[in-house]
């Protein structure tokens, strides 16, 4: 079956511009996550959705970052007034909710490499 897909694979933008990154999770996965991975580092949690609602957005670095998942499937990460420090690979992952409501395996997409000039 299809895995997690992310578009675009690469995005180059200029400082101050607005960007949208899209994630299509695995069908039937209720949980969706966004991470940011800078060069030489591990993924850093940004936000987690359970269904349509953001269950935990504590990882969003500031109010320039926003994410939505209006129908509980596809999600869009939106970054306003981009800065050079936003350059990173943005990863999306999805998972089934664990049997006990706890953590379960996350399936990752290939990521979107964002470069802010």
């Amino acid at each position, binding site marked *: 079956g299809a895995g997690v897909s992310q578009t675009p694979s690469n995005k180059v933008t200029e400082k101050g511009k607005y960007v949208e990154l899209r994630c299509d999770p695995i069908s039937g996965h209720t949980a969706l*996550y966004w991470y940011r991975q800078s060069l030489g*580092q*591990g*993924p850093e949690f940004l936000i987690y959705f359970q269904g349509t609602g953001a269950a*935990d957005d504590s990882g969003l670095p500031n109010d320039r970052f926003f994410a939505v998942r209006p129908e509980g499937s596809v999600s869009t990460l939106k970054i306003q007034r981009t800065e050079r420090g936003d350059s990173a690979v943005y*990863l999306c992952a999805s998972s089934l909710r664990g049997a006990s409501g706890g953590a379960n395996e996350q399936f990752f997409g290939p*990521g979107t490499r964002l470069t802010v000039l």
Partner: protein
Amino acid sequence: AQSVTQPDIHITVSEGASLELRCNYSYGATPYLFWYVQSPGQGLQLLLKYFSGDTLVQGIKGFEAEFKRSQSSFNLRKPSVHWSDAAEYFCAVASGYGQNFVFGPGTRLSVLP
């Protein structure tokens, strides 16, 4: 809040040699533990996971990991490394009720022929 350390930034081993990658976590309750591998240009792939039960878990590609509560560790092992194992390895921890995964900084594995 949970945290993860991977003390080794870069490890080099010869093909056929054994491997152990270290992972230490900090979490107040029983953690959910994971090892992921990331090859150049590829997405993260799950190698194995620990939720409960047997503390020695088997994963894909011949990897295994052992959960040691007393040492707050979840080290990854492989008895004989193949050249295709060269990649970046990430340990991750999650809480039982939250869904926030915390990843370690990663260990880059190089394999000599």
